[in-house]
């Protein structure tokens, strides 16, 4: 048996960011119940509390774990949590993306202002789940983090005010999500079972400990292989990878747009971070057939996402499908990470940079969509963008930059993140994956250009009532920050990696 866990102060200091986040998540509810006598707190106050919580978590993370950047690794809670460079970067990205996407909740009409404190509670707790997910050092911890994140998300999806598709999305997300969690858990139990046999009954569950066992088992033990594949399936659902991607377009479309921002940025980043941790079990690279399957999964994800996006006329659905395509690109980076030997390697780095870049563009594009929805109602088509440049040039330029970033056209950050990702994919010798990825980005260019064409090449329509100058507020500033980052981010890439 492993030595009895001893909890030290150091352990608690390491998870202090998460604890802080939890305390701050309770504040709005406490104020609502005890001070305001069940009347809703002002939205602004709630937003301020949440942002304060996120910023203090960010600060604490940097203060107590900053040394992980120089390669120090801490283990805490009987090695259940690991604090290394990868988890540090992952959490930073998650917190930054969450900070960026939070303000969009305050202005969107589909958000129920009477339940905003509850929304903040769920929002912060789902981030808490993500942090544990990124820190997790064994499969059980991964599962707990994943469930904590997902349960909050299920509720967030169904919390918005009546929209055409929101309830459908909520049910779909919940049912399929639970199914995936079940599959994941089943896979975990199979993996544990087969590992225990090898270790004389000792429960060894940490990723780093079973890394070598896994490499051996995957070729020998069918039970382990089955478990491994089931866990892969569970993750594939969470990150929306073919053939488990079908929920994503519906849920992204049905959820209120601010939540879509959150799901396509921070949630995606967290799921991929956990995925990266899982594939550090040296298994995929050992089995040629498994490698073959995951490669094609990545390629098909790109293709399905791109072709799905190609035929959409609703902007939101187009972006939702394109998000699937981006999952495919990122997934190819995850495959490259399977080959790496160091715990924090170029592949993980490139996946994180890509997640950050994609997250920023996602905030830009979905964020802009939320401006449009605020003025024009839901279900926005490309027509709404007609001639935007001639009415509000800055808005159109900013949006165009975000789309160009998504398309990966130089000199935007999108290009550099793609270059980084594809070059690490190529390092592993997966030339076909490189070629497919590049061909897919051309398909992507086609539909990302469409909104730009509508904005610049068409004359503005008289009937369209959208006026960007009326949007105002912190959201508008955020939008510009994101689009400027899209343009100049590439030049700061050396600092990012």
């Amino acid at each position: 048996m492993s030595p009895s866990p001893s909890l030290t102060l150091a352990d608690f200091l390491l998870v202090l960011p998460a604890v802080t986040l939890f305390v701050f998540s309770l504040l709005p509810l406490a104020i609502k119940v005890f001070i305001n006598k069940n009347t809703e707190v002002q939205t602004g106050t709630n937003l301020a509390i949440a942002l304060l919580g996120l910023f203090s978590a960010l600060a604490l993370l940097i203060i107590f774990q900053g040394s992980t950047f120089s390669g120090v690794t801490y283990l805490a809670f009987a090695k259940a949590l690991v604090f290394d460079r990868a988890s540090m970067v992952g959490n930073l990205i998650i917190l930054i993306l969450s900070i960026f996407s939070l303000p969009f909740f305050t202005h969107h009409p589909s958000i129920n202002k009477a339940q905003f404190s509850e929304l903040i509670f769920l929002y912060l707790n789902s981030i808490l789940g993500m942090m544990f997910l990124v820190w997790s050092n064994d499969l059980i911890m991964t599962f707990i983090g994943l469930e904590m994140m997902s349960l909050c998300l299920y509720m967030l999806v169904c919390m918005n005010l009546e929209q055409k598709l929101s309830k459908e999305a909520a049910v779909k997300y919940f049912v399929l999500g639970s199914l995936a969690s079940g599959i994941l858990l089943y896979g975990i139990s199979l993996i544990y079972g087969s590992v225990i046999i090898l270790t004389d009954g000792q429960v060894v569950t940490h990723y780093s400990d079973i890394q070598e066992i896994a490499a051996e088992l995957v070729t020998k033990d069918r039970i382990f292989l089955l478990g491994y594949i089931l866990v892969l399936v569970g993750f594939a659902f969470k990150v929306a990878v073919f053939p488990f991607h079908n929920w994503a377009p519906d849920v992204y479309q049905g959820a209120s747009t601010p939540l879509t921002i959150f799901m396509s940025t921070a949630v995606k980043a967290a799921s991929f971070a956990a995925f990266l941790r899982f594939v550090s079990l040296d298994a995929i690279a050992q089995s040629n057939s498994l490698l073959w399957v995951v490669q094609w999964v990545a390629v098909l994800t790109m293709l399905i996402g791109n072709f799905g996006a190609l035929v959409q006329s609703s902007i939101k659905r187009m972006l939702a499908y394109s998000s699937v395509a981006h999952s495919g690109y990122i997934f190819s980076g995850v495959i490259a990470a399977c080959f790496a030997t160091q715990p924090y390697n170029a592949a993980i780095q490139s996946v994180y940079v890509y997640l950050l870049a994609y997250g920023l563009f996602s905030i830009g594009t979905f964020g802009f969509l939320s401006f449009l929805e605020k003025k024009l109602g839901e279900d926005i088509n490309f027509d709404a963008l007609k001639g935007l440049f001639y009415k509000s040039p800055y808005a159109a330029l900013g949006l165009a930059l975000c789309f160009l970033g998504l398309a990966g056209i130089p000199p935007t950050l999108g290009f550099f993140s793609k270059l980084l990702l594809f070059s690490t994919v190529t390092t592993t010798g997966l030339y076909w994956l490189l070629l497919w990825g590049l061909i897919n980005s051309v398909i992507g260019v086609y539909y990302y250009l469409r909104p730009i064409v509508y904005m610049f090449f068409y004359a503005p329509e008289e009937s369209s009532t959208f006026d960007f100058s009326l949007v105002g507020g912190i959201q508008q500033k955020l939008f510009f920050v994101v689009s400027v980052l899209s343009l100049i981010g590439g030049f700061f890439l050396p600092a990012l990696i």
Partner: protein
Amino acid sequence: MLLSTIVFLPLVFAFIVAFNPKEKITRELSLGFSILLLGLSLLMLFRFDPTTPDVQMVHQFKWIPQLGIDYILGVDGISIWLIILSNFLLPLVIVGSWNAIKDKVRLFHVALFLLQTSMLGSFLALDLVLFYIFFESSLIPMAMMIGIWGGDRKIYASFKFFIYTMFGSVFMLASIICLMLLNKAATGELSSNLLDLYRIDIAFVEGRLISTQTLLFLGFAIALAIKVPMFPVHTWLPDAHVQAPTPGSVILAGVMLKMGTYGFLRFAFPLFPDASEQLSQIFLLLAVIGIIYGALVAMVQTDVKKLVAYSSVSHMGYVVLGLFAMNEAGVTGGLYQMLNHGISTGALFFLVGMIYERTHTREVSAYGGLARILPIYTIFFLIITFSSIAVPLTNGFVGEFLILMGAFMKSSYWGILGVTGVVLGATYMLWVVKKIFFGPENEKLKKYELKDLSPREWCVLVPLVIMVFWMGLFPGHFLKYSEVSVNHLIQNMHNYSIGTTEIKPINIGLKDSQKPSHIISEEK
């Protein structure tokens, strides 16, 4: 620093023009800027030392060290005239668009300057990723030019242009990434610096069709062939040209197409000498097909602009023919023909645009007997036509002569096939001149009350005509700058191909002490 200034000054100009409070003076302001830019590039020409093949006036620093991406700009005899050409055409384009572009003037000039930065950057970049960035970012302003100020099917044409080129260039990106990794395998470090990559040995198996070098070469060749454009991937060009506004066509034909042929000379040949040699027959064949096919299709066009567009396909075929002949005469001729094509086809698009502004039709049948109504216009058109069909004393003759000489040296078949193109080229150009300018006067033309060239139009055409004769009469003035670089390229390619290890790489990658004195004297 001079080169970086030349590249990024247009970007600064774009910002100034965009935020200039007085929209009325946009054109005057832009013209001033473009002349300043031309002055700077002439300063570069003045400082250029034609006696060495080294890249000069290098400005470099590590940009993204983790990926081995450098920022490095440098000029040599191959790129210097293309820089001058782009900066020479820019003021003419601004003057030429004075009437053609009526709305969104400010945006137009911003796009023009952005385009200029990306084009100059791609001619000067000596790092593959840097080149790719400039190469690709030129698509956005050009697509905007076609899409915003274009004709009836502008959106289709703009999309087609963008997707087509983008499709090609991802293969180049794949090759670039593989090259970076090959450098890592050879030296232990990622690098996309061209001067590092020139030194690595890329596996090539004699007699086998598929080898690393061949595949990487093909990746580059697809992208560059689409850009040139070579037969059979030329189909975006007629659409783009016909839909683009006159200034867009001039820049597209004048400078952007050269990015393709320049790419062959700068990247594909020196990096993959064996593969280029191996596949040269295929490219020569495609070039010859392009020459003849372009000419034949041009013959049956009824739209003058489309005719010029197809003649472009034919002329760029000559350039490729010259380059892939891979001897001094051919490559020199190809380089010269790039400049000729920039001047003569640019001028033709200007001329077509001028008459279109007056009559709003480009149908050949709508004209006739124009020589009597617009005598001066006719004279200019004839001179440019002569240049285009390579009549002696004009610039076209020098280029085509050298190319055909190179082609004959390669093999007389290519020479003979190339010569047929000359005859066909003369046929369609003279046919269109006859239809438009001579013969009975077309009655329909009366209603337009045509006026001959305005002083502004004189300003556009006179510099072009001067260049036609200058380059035709004194080719030595121009060739002496590129001679050494071209010889160096050819010699090294042949050394490489016959297995001599004595490759003489271009020198800037060496330490400061080993650099030729003029490089050290240049500021860092």
